């Protein structure tokens, strides 16, 4: 390997790629050639650094300078000043990464990273995911080597069981027990599946792991194959994740070339092959039995369990299925041991969890924290709080199957069981922050709209029941709610939960139940007072011009329907019969004189 005096890491995750990081890499490489520096300085496209809000992100090593919001136009300055002359470009350094005395703060001490503990994300943003040598330099495939050469399958399963690792895909089932089941099924053929369908509509943890460190997932799948006696695996990825698919396929072919996948791995008689299968845009395919139906080439409709996949799964053979993040935890557990893993997190939820932090939060991005970390730490210390001085209202976890946690419960530790107690759930890791401007009835409606669209239609309670719930919610947010609508919602919710065939229907009412539990007053305001306390629902919101109006006429000029009238330098008025609530006037007013009531 060649020696470089400097490495420039540029984030190639989806967020930063969307804001132009590919162009940055291209430009930088070109400039380095022009300056004849290409043998001294290497540009590396890595996976996601996590702090997506500050993207595109560029880090220069060995100094560890953390540049944020870099534009193509800035590349010249970084090359000229920093790489050539050794002078840090202060104006581009991330605001928390430089002290007043202009000393650099190490990455791990920046507040966003300080409270995190990265296991599943350990290599994301550290290595070039398209280069297996870099993965191997950070211990990839060592755990597999240890398993197949030094340990029996039973011993490996015992380690995984003892570690207390629970499924990160939502259910939280013990991974060790699952593997034991699959191992004990007798069959001539078994399969290992990685669930990378990531259906939660606001989450991208699994995507970032696949994009940033694909080898760890492949390695763990091979370890699982060794444990349960399988020689073939499938990764089922959402088709919407082209970068992840490309890197996975590259990683598979590189691993095969190195003899780390394929026949007789590392000279043993253990063989394992992995295929990639693309989803086609159906949320229900994240459910394990539907996912297998989809790999078999059918409509992704779930089947009743039992039989469980460990007994009869893909192509009717015993199958073990785990989530991407679950797999990403396996190699470190094998290498560092049970005690290390158990020392992290809580008694019943060991280790860490990755969350996709989004919504009304300053530091949008990916965070990995120890289980048991209070929500408050995630929102304020890591997330940097709520933008624009607004009040935090609730945090939604668990996506369409989960619920909202109100602001007064922020000190509850995040773990599987505590979240369920609160009427939410861990889910796969979506964490959406909502502020005072978000209407909780509308959020419930949003998730119901999602499940109605995604219900596969096989069972009646889910197909028709969720639609009836949505109709009720639709009329509530339109200001046409009826007296007994809340009771109707509760009754429907109970029936759907109890009688649906699969997890989709069984959990679909959760967003409604949880918002009803914590924000019943908002529902009541919509129905009985015909108001939306958050001033979000348009049918229930009126506009008013206050005495702050200077009569500048800007609002009257921008109004597309001429609903605003008034003399110059006189207070204006809005005719609500004409107003279509496009809110253009609010955006235009320089005196904040137009308010929603």
């Amino acid at each position, binding site marked *: 390997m060649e020696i470089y005096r400097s490495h420039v890491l540029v984030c190639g995750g989806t967020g930063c790629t969307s804001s132009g990081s590919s162009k940055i890499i291209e430009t930088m490489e070109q400039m380095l050639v022009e300056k004849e520096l290409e043998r001294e300085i290497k540009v590396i496209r890595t996976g996601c650094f996590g702090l997506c809000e500050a993207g595109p992100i560029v880090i220069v090593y060995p100094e560890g300078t953390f540049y944020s919001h870099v534009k193509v136009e800035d590349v010249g300055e970084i090359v000229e000043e920093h790489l050539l002359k050794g002078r840090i470009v202060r104006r581009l350094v991330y605001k928390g990464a430089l002290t007043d005395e202009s000393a650099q703060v190490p990455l791990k001490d920046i507040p966003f990273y300080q409270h995190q503990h990265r296991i599943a994300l350990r290599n994301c943003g550290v290595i070039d995911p398209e280069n297996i040598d870099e993965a191997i330099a950070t211990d990839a495939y060592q755990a597999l080597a240890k398993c197949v050469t030094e340990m029996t399958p039973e011993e490996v399963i015992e380690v995984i069981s003892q570690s207390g690792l629970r499924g990160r895909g939502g259910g939280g089932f013990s991974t060790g027990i699952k593997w034991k089941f699959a191992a004990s099924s007798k069959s001539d053929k078994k399969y290992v599946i990685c669930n990378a369908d990531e259906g939660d509509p*606001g989450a991208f943890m699994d995507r970032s792991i696949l994009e940033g460190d694909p080898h760890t997932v492949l390695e763990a799948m091979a370890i699982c194959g060794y444990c349960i006696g399988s020689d073939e695996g499938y990764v089922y990825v959402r088709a919407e994740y082209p970068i992840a698919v490309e890197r996975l396929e590259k990683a598979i072919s590189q691993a095969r070339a190195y003899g780390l996948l394929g026949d007789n791995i590392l000279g043993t008689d253990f063989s394992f092959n992995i295929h990639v299968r693309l989803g086609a845009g159906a949320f229900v395919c994240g459910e394990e039995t539907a996912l297998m139906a989809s790999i078999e080439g059918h409509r992704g409709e779930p089947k009743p369990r039992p039989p469980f996949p460990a007994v009869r799964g893909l192509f009717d053979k015993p199958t073990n299925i785990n989530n991407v993040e679950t797999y990403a935890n396996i190699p470190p557990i094998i290498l560092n041991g049970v005690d290390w893993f158990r020392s992290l997190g809580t008694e019943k939820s060991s280790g860490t969890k990755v969350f996709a932090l*989004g919504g*009304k939060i300053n530091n949008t991005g990916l965070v990995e924290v120890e289980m048991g970390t209070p929500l408050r730490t995630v929102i304020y210390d890591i997330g940097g709080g709520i933008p624009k001085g607004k009040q935090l209202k609730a945090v939604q976890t668990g996506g369409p199957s989960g619920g909202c946690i109100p602001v007064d419960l922020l000190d509850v530790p995040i773990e599987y069981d505590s979240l369920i107690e609160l009427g939410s759930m861990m889910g796969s890791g979506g964490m959406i922050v909502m502020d005072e401007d978000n209407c909780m009835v509308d959020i419930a409606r949003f998730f119901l709209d999602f499940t109605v669209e995604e219900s596969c239609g096989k069972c009646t309670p889910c197909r028709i029941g969720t639609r009836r719930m949505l109709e009720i919610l639709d009329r509530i947010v339109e200001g046409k709610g009826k007296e007994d609508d809340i009771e109707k919602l509760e009754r429907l919710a109970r029936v759907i939960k109890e009688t649906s065939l699969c997890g989709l229907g069984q959990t679909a009412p959760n967003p409604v139940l949880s918002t009803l539990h914590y924000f019943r007053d908002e529902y009541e305001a919509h129905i009985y007072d015909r108001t939306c306390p958050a001033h979000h629902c348009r049918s229930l919101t009126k506009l008013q011009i206050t005495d702050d109006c200077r009569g500048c006429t800007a609002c009257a000029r921008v109004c597309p329907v001429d609903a605003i009238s008034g003399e110059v330098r006189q207070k204006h008025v809005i005719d609500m019969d004409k107003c279509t609530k496009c809110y253009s006037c609010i955006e235009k007013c320089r005196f904040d004189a137009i308010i929603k009531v």
Partner: protein
Amino acid sequence: MATKDQEKYLELEKIIEEHKGLPGALMPAMQKTQELFGCVPLKAQQMLADGLNATLSEVYGIATFYSQFNLEPKGEYVISVCLGTACYVKGAQDILDRICEEIETMPGKTSADGRFTVEATRCIGACGLAPVMTINEEVHGRIMPDDVPSILAKYKK
């Protein structure tokens, strides 16, 4: 025109040939078909069914079950507005409404001149840029409803 179509169907025959006998071949073959034609036309469905030992109703069932497949071609530009949770709480619905207003169509539909198809998608992993939309491959982030006309103007030419 016709020759171009014929070429595509010849290509499809090759795709079918490559997938024969593979376990669960129908979906991957249909995905290749979708890539080739931009949709899965009826004639292609019939060929897939004949070639891969399935019935037409099975192929049609799959094509209509998964949202990635469409039976008719999309517009020249596909505008996908993210309605993932992170984007939704930051006002993505307003963006979608505004786009539909500007090009006079509805979500899931193509404009009368056949140039623009508007869709709602789920999280594309760029929540840091919420609200987000993509026009073909290009990503536009942190948009406000009032930015919509100027963004669209670039493509309308």
